[in-house]
């Protein structure tokens, strides 16, 4: 492909290709550099190597079926992607998740944010030579993913937050695991602060490099930690609070200069705040704990057999898919409206109403059908405002689904940020942006 820069470049300058298979390009981006020795005169950023037609695919899936695709957008904080999509649909349907589910959502999205920031900073520090930081951050992330795994059953492709609530209640022992994760993450944050904050090598590569002014950042549509590093106060959690963020106490850290170091620092401080949020949410979360709901009752096989003759009135110990009796738990974690939720499995297997609900939910043209119209809703994702724009034509599939990917806007500023700098500056600059291929290319 003849790119723009190949046509425009001066004859005497050197053209250097970086990526898409370059370890510091995170696999999915290509930068063509026009160089005068090590100085970058011009550059051209090419994206799209991970484009897989997310939006087109979603137009051909039902509202329920397309949820797993949203996991794969930002694969280090999939739960926030789930949440953004689900809340957009909920706004169209006019339903709201119960309070316990709201708190679970907040806990999960804050844990995701921490794991997102940890991954970003790990890669950034490693590319600057601080391999210890990479290992420490990965260690902390493992502890956080333990909580996520216990709750959702998966580490990355969670599909946990569902329309109307969440898929399952927290694990009976989640508190111990969560407390451990918080303690370990705090330790790692302290170590990383110690390793990097006054590290000459790290400072030389980040301080006052790729400075972005607040005006520029706004003009480029930056959001999230990158925008806040320039000193602009904008956080979706504060500007238009969703879930229960307005009931929790946290601060929005800001940077001053808008350089690479500020972007690093804002992320570090934000993790601290996220840990605070998780701690508060853990205290405030209402409702019976899942261990209290381990119902005593008859065996599922027995219940199914009995239901052949007449409806079973006794409690069922386990739902037939072995996840514990769902009926009791669903009250706290899913909206009541039967049209929009998958009925508990014990109902599906033992009552006629349950089976009708089940079929009505999954049958083509019958499931979730939001009213005609369009909606935009956004949540604070790992690297900025993650917005979904959905147009519904009243059927069970979205007519159009558009994702406002935060890093699309951030990466579009890369060309300008590296202009006039050295090649070595590309790496920490790009690292501090937190480019996520799945979300950028969709």
């Amino acid at each position: 492909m003849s790119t723009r820069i190949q046509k425009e470049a001066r004859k005497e300058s050197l053209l250097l290709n970086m990526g898409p298979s370059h370890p510091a390009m995170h696999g999915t981006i290509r930068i063509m550099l026009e160089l005068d020795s090590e100085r970058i005169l011009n550059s051209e950023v090419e994206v799209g190597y991970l484009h897989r037609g997310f939006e087109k695919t979603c137009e051909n899936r039902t509202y329920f079926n397309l949820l797993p695709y949203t996991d794969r957008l930002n694969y280090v904080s999939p739960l926030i992607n789930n949440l953004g999509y689900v809340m957009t649909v909920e706004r169209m349907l006019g339903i709201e998740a119960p309070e316990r589910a709201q708190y679970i959502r907040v806990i999960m999205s804050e844990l995701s944010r921490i794991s997102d920031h940890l991954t970003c900073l790990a890669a950034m520090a490693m590319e600057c030579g601080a391999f210890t930081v990479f290992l420490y951050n990965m260690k902390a992330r493992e502890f956080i993913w333990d909580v996520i795994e216990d709750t959702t059953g998966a580490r990355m492709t969670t599909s946990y937050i569902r329309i109307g609530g969440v898929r399952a209640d927290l694990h009976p022992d989640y508190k111990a695991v969560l407390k451990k994760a918080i303690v370990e993450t705090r330790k790692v944050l302290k170590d990383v602060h110690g390793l990097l904050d006054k590290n000459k090598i790290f400072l030389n590569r980040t301080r006052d490099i790729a400075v972005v002014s607040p005006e520029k950042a706004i003009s480029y549509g930056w959001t999230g930690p990158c925008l806040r590093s320039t000193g602009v106060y904008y956080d979706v959690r504060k500007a238009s609070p969703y879930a229960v963020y307005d009931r929790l106490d946290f601060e929005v850290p800001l940077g001053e200069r808008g350089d690479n170091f500020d972007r690093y620092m804002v992320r570090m401080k934000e993790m601290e705040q996220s840990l605070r949020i998780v701690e508060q949410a853990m205290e405030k979360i209402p409702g019976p704990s899942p261990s209290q709901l381990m119902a005593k009752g008859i065996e599922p096989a027995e219940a199914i057999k009995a239901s052949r003759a007449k409806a079973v009135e006794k409690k069922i110990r386990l739902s037939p898919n072995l996840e514990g009796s769902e009926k009791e738990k669903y009250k706290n974690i899913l909206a009541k409206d039967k049209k929009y939720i998958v009925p508990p499995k014990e109902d599906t297997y033992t009552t006629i109403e349950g089976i009708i609900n089940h079929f009505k939910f999954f049958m083509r043209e019958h499931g979730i059908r939001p009213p005609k119209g369009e909606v935009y809703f956004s949540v604070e994702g790992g690297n900025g405002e993650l917005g979904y724009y959905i147009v519904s034509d009243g059927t069970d599939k979205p007519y159009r689904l558009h994702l406002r990917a935060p890093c699309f806007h951030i990466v579009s500023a890369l060309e300008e940020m590296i202009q006039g700098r050295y090649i070595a500056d590309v790496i920490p600059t790009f690292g501090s942006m937190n480019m996520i291929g799945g979300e950028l290319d969709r």
Partner: protein
Amino acid sequence: MEMEKKKVLEKLKQKFPEKIKEISVQFGDENVLIESGFLLGIVQFLKNEPYAYNMLLDLTCVDYKDQEQRFEMVYHLYSLNNKQRLRIKTRLSEKDLSIDSLTSLWENANWLEREVYDMFGVQFRGHPDLRRIFMYEGFEGYPLRKDYPLRKRQPRIPLRK
């Protein structure tokens, strides 16, 4: 806050009476449907004080295949000071598929408009570098149009010499 929002919409209607076709509110979002030729003027007006919609949050397009004015451009503006969002929409017909570029007002319009061009084939007047962004050069058709089949195969592109 609600009053503020109403004020902006009323003011907009006063200022551009014949250019604004429709104002509606749905699911808590304000929609303004305008004539496509006046986009730049209206957006410029909104970007300045006192409304200060200083951020272009998002820019996209929707293909309504069976309608006469087939393509609908959708702009989401955001005001950081007033914490307000506004959606501006305008219709384009397939015959004259072009609209003014917003690259003179916002930097991120550059890539966003390239994306819409790539996916829908909308031409942007005054865009400095309008070419495909996600798809490769030599890709045939516009994938997000409703008449582009989901599983369509593309022809092979010749090897470079």
